[in-house]
């Protein structure tokens, strides 16, 4: 009998190893493998980017975009327009082309436009909303163009106007525009961690 047990032992051990490995791999792929605390910490990093001028200047609550690191109202009476692209005669693309125009200091990127009002990250007095409020907006699929966590990660990773924030070109005086506080790689990594934690949001208003 002991001989039979001995002969089965390697099979048992291999089966046990395989089961453990399988569980381990499946847990690594599940969102629950990242704790909520880690997710919230990652969100803090994401939020620091979202409220940086290169991002939030086009996530206004008003009928105009902002510009500059001081986030002042866009000059020339530029307004939002019905689709966030200005109005006939004064469209975003009247000045902003498909890429930065460094010789004249005008930033540009594909389909230059304002974020929809549902994605406003400021109040009507141009003050950034709280971390909790921005998180709620970003994760509300009725407001965010129906993006789930995976879609948000893709948006942060690949959307051309998002990526533009790390290649914002030169100001008219020739100096380089300020970039967000994290690198794009760090921003994507933080977003991934937050998504894997189930996109937790801070409590509060």
């Amino acid at each position, binding site marked *: 009998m002991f001989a039979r047990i001995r002969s089965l032992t390697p099979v048992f051990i291999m089966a046990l190893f395989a089961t453990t490995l399988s569980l381990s791999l499946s847990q690594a792929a599940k969102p629950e493998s990242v704790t909520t605390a880690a997710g919230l910490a990652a969100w803090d990093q994401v939020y620091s980017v979202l409220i940086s001028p290169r991002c939030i200047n086009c996530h206004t609550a008003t009928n105009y975009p902002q510009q500059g690191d001081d986030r002042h109202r866009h*000059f*020339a*009476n*530029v*307004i939002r*327009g019905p689709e966030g692209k200005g*109005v*006939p*005669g*004064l*469209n975003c*693309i*009247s*000045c902003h*082309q*498909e*890429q930065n*125009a*460094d*010789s*004249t*200091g*005008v930033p*540009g990127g594909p389909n230059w436009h304002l974020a929809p009002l549902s994605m406003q990250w400021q109040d009507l007095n141009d003050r950034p909303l709280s971390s909790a409020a921005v998180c709620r907006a970003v994760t509300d699929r009725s407001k965010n163009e129906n993006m789930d966590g995976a879609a948000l990660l893709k948006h942060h990773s690949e959307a051309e106007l998002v990526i533009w924030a790390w290649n914002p070109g030169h100001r*008219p005086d020739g100096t380089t525009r300020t970039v967000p506080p994290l690198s794009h790689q760090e921003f994507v990594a933080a977003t991934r961690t937050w998504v894997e934690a189930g996109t937790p949001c801070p409590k509060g208003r």
Partner: protein
Amino acid sequence: MATYRLNVNGSQKTVDVDPSTPLLWVLREELKLTGTKYGCGISACGACTVHVGGVATRSCVVPVSLIGGPIVTIEGVGNDPVGRAVQNAWVEKDVVQCGYCQSGQIMSAVALLKATPKPTETNIEESMGGNLCRCATYVRIREAIMSASQQVK
């Protein structure tokens, strides 16, 4: 330097310029189309407005290397029914005083009426808000746009 082929007012033009040259200077200095004016140089006044691919464009800030469509300037806009209607209305209402900003005003007005043939006062205010006039001809500009809109189907 680089060579660019541009469609300007329906004609093919070839220019050999630095890629960073603003379209305004290509029009004025290379093609001698001086109806488009230099005002502020930072797209804040609208005097340099032309149409690129049908979109009112501030030619003082757009490098020639980024131009992606046919260009229409004040010299060519009258070939279009809407452009003609606007120019006629400008004459009818005697809009112009010194005239320096008026080519840009007309180009923006045409862009407005092509997209919104029957504009409201708010439409006019919003679309023309980026075109400044030191002579303050704004009241007549508004009247002329309303008048032109009656001629536009």
